[in-house]
């Protein structure tokens, strides 16, 4: 579900709607389609599509009239009633949904109206700014032209005066010349003519400038209206978006190889597309490294994106920019997201169980650490169906978990690794049966001469000599007694297992502390308890050894299948001949630590362990 998508879709609806409303406002009657989407009228809340889809009650009544069988009528009436009730309930549900939808629409409508108002205000502001600028320009220009006109007129007036004076002077000169010319007195004429001619010549030399000293044209410099133009443009053009806000990682939004990233924009912004950048954060790469991980980029139109092909259980740094026709926003803050881990791998051979509990062990499955693990288990029915109830143990810090179970059931268990990004996929599912106690052998404790079958439950002691090198071993390994320990679940309850032997095999079986002395024989010390079978030339001898001491005991029928019953609460370890249901011996000991089953062969032979079987009733009397 994506809110933004939905909102986008609804916005379209609203846009159409408002047109409808505009149209229908004059004629107050609205058609159904309008009512369906109008959000300002109450009619929308009682929108009722049932008339289109549900059978009408009258139709049902018609059915009664057609049928003569009264008993059937009652039945059908009940049936119809139920049908009506169910339809009514459906309709009520629909109505509620529609009401919710209408509520949403109303909200959106308000938002749009608000945005529109803001936009209008914004435009008006712009418009006023432009007008103001223009009138300012006009005033400036008008003032300039007036000044120029005044200057020009002054210059022309001066010139006019100069011309007038020259005209007057020439007129007076002409009159003087004419007077001279008309004079009868020759001598006087001759006397005055010469200075006058000189004066005329002189006057003629004085040139009068008759060109206009100022141009008639006004100098009109090209008006620089580029700023106005910008302003005008900016009225039409949306501003470049501001930096989007990238959201922190949402729970369950990541997978092993993908991340779903969401961000938001400011409501005033118009965005054409976003660009999401991401790169892995590698802890072992130094900050100044030249080989910094490469940044990848995706272009999307939505305010979310699922980034794919990532590394599991890895941290990624992501940021986003928004772009529209005007430009690119600054980058958002950088957010850290994390892919979920790979599923863990259950170590089947290291899982152990008993009727009350199971110990599950697994490998992380991830190279870098995860936050925790979740163990999930559900019961499997006898018919093989999985129970719908899954129980979980969360926040398991280590790669093992002890889970409490009910006896005599079968469970399906799986594990998930969890980090900030969420849980991984399920590991492979293993089946745990709580019929009896189940364990594998701790093969690293096995004496070098001991070999273990593939299924892990039969041990062999061959008689071939081993090279000395094979004897080199760690502290865990039995070095003297050809023995091996079993990995018993650490639960202080009752445990039972059986051992199958040949009656010609010399063996020791029982329990020992995990740290029992590995260079001594089982039963020879205070940290182990065991039943020992010795073949003497004359008879079979059985010992029940602890601290090197055994009671003196004779058994007439050689047990070949031995039941071992350990009861921590009573502090008993009992041995039985399973085939005869015969009790052989019980050790009394308050085991202070957890013990492990132990098995050893004192001469070449084999021994098979049977476990996961229900303890017979007689074993815990």
């Amino acid at each position, binding site marked *: 579900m994506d809110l933004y998508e939905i909102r986008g879709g609804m916005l379209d609806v609203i846009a159409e709607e408002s047109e409808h409303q505009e149209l229908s406002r004059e004629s107050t009657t609205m058609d159904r389609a309008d009512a369906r989407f109008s959000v300002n009228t109450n009619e929308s809340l009682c929108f009722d599509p049932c008339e289109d889809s549900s059978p009408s009650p009258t139709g049902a009544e018609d059915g009664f009239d057609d049928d003569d069988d009264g008993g059937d009528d009652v039945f059908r009436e009940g049936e119809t009633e139920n049908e009506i009730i169910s339809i009514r309930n459906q309709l009520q549900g629909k109505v509620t949904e529609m009401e919710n939808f209408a509520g949403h629409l109303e909200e959106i409508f308000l938002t749009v109206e608000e945005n529109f108002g803001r936009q209008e205000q914004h435009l008006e502001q712009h418009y006023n700014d432009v007008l103001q600028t223009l009138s300012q320009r006009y005033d400036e220009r008008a003032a300039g032209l007036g000044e120029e006109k005044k200057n020009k007129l002054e210059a022309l007036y001066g010139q006019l005066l100069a011309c007038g004076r020259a005209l007057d002077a020439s007129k007076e000169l002409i009159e003087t010349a004419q007077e001279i010319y008309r004079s009868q007195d020759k001598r006087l004429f001759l006397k005055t003519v010469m200075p006058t001619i000189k004066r005329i010549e002189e006057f003629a030399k004085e040139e009068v400038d008759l060109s206009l000293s100022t141009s008639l044209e006004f100098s009109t410099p090209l008006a620089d209206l580029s700023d106005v133009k910008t302003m005008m443009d900016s009225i039409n053009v949306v501003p470049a978006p501001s930096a989007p806000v990238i959201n922190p990682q949402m729970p369950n939004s990541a997978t092993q190889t993908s991340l779903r990233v969401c961000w938001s924009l400011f409501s005033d912004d118009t965005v054409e597309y976003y660009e999401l950048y991401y790169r892995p954060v590698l802890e072992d790469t130094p900050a100044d490294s030249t080989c910094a991980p490469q940044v990848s980029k995706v272009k999307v139109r939505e305010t979310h994106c699922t980034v794919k092909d990532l590394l599991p259980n890895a941290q990624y740094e992501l940021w986003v920019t928004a772009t529209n026709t005007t430009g690119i926003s600054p980058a958002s803050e950088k957010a850290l997201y994390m892919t979920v881990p790979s599923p863990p791998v259950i170590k089947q051979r290291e899982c152990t169980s008993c009727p009350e509990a199971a110990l599950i062990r697994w490998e992380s499955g991830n190279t870098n650490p995860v936050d925790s693990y979740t163990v999930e288990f559900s019961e499997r029915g006898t018919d093989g169906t999985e129970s719908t109830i899954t129980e979980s143990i969360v926040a398991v810090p280590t790669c093992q978990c002890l889970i409490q179970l009910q006896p005599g059931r079968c469970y399906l268990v799986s594990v998930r690794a969890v980090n900030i990004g969420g849980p991984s996929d399920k590991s492979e599912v293993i089946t745990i049966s709580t019929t009896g106690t189940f364990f594998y052998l701790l093969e690293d404790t096995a004496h070098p001469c001991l070999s273990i079958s593939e299924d892990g439950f039969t041990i062999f002691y061959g008689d071939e000599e081993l090279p000395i090198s094979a004897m080199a071993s760690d502290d865990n390994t039995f070095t003297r007694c050809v023995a091996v320990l079993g990995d018993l679940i650490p639960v202080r309850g009752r445990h039972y297992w059986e051992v199958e032997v040949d009656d010609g095999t010399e063996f020791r079986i029982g329990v020992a502390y995990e740290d029992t002395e590995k260079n001594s024989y089982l039963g020879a010390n205070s940290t182990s308890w065991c039943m020992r079978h010795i073949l003497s030339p004359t008879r079979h001898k059985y010992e029940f050894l602890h601290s090197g001491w055994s009671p003196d*005991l004779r058994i007439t029928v050689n047990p070949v299948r031995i039941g071992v019953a350990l009861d921590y609460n009573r502090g008993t370890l009992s041995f039985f001949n399973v085939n005869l249901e015969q009790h052989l011996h019980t050790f009394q000991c308050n085991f202070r630590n957890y013990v492990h089953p132990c098995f050893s062969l004192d001469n070449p032979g084999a021994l098979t362990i049977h476990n996961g079987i229900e303890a017979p009733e007689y074993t815990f009397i």
Partner: protein
Amino acid sequence: MALTQVSSNKCAGGFQKVFEHESTELKCKMKFAVYLPPKAETDKCPVMYWLSGLTCTEQNFITKAGSQLTAAEHGLIIVAPDTSPRGCSIEGEDESWDFGTGAGFYVDATQEPWKTNYCMYSYITEELPKLINANFPTDPDKMSISGHSMGGHGALICALKNPGKYKAVSAFAPICNPMQCPWGQKAFSGYLGSDRSTWEAYDATVLAASYSGPQLDILIDQGRDDQFLSASQLLPDNLIAVCSEKKIPVVFRLQPGYDHSYFFIYSFINDHIKHHAKYLNA
């Protein structure tokens, strides 16, 4: 079949009682002890019969063995009869401690003057169980048997001679092969006569060699410092050898330091009651 209560004492939540009755087999008054666990107040309980050893009466076991707490825990009725007829005025019956009174040896005597009264085998296997089942809340199909010394011998032969009748059997220091020991030879020749072939019917080792029937699981405890073991009165090795050969399951425990007394019985009675409970409550 009338029972007379001799005593009744509350014990371990139940009651330890002693009754007296007129025995038809033994033709005398016989006493027996019966422990009724708390469970017997509401349910039918299995019965364990306890056979005591030479010189004992019904009192020894109930006062010395300490069996009641465990019997109460497992819901077992324990019946402890006397070890021989008493007061039959047979000549010589009180002459020695290992023959006659207190030494019935759990056989049916065939020889005069014993054969009229000394029919302890029939008393233990027939008359007493009928009496008990008729008078107490028992489960007649669930009975078992145990005993000490001569009673151990009795328990073993009752179980071996009646395959399936007793669900479990155990013994403390039993006389395992009476034909081969002084006690048995004295008793058998007295009660059964000199024909040794008739003795075989009451010898556990001989009976084990020819046993066929439902599987037995025999638990035997024996004190290592038992004077009668070293005196070759008990001879457990003979029985074990036969059982090993015949694959009759026996767990034989030689308990170091213990002698033939009830102190020894007291020490291991719980293991035996558990052994019986395992089969009686199965």
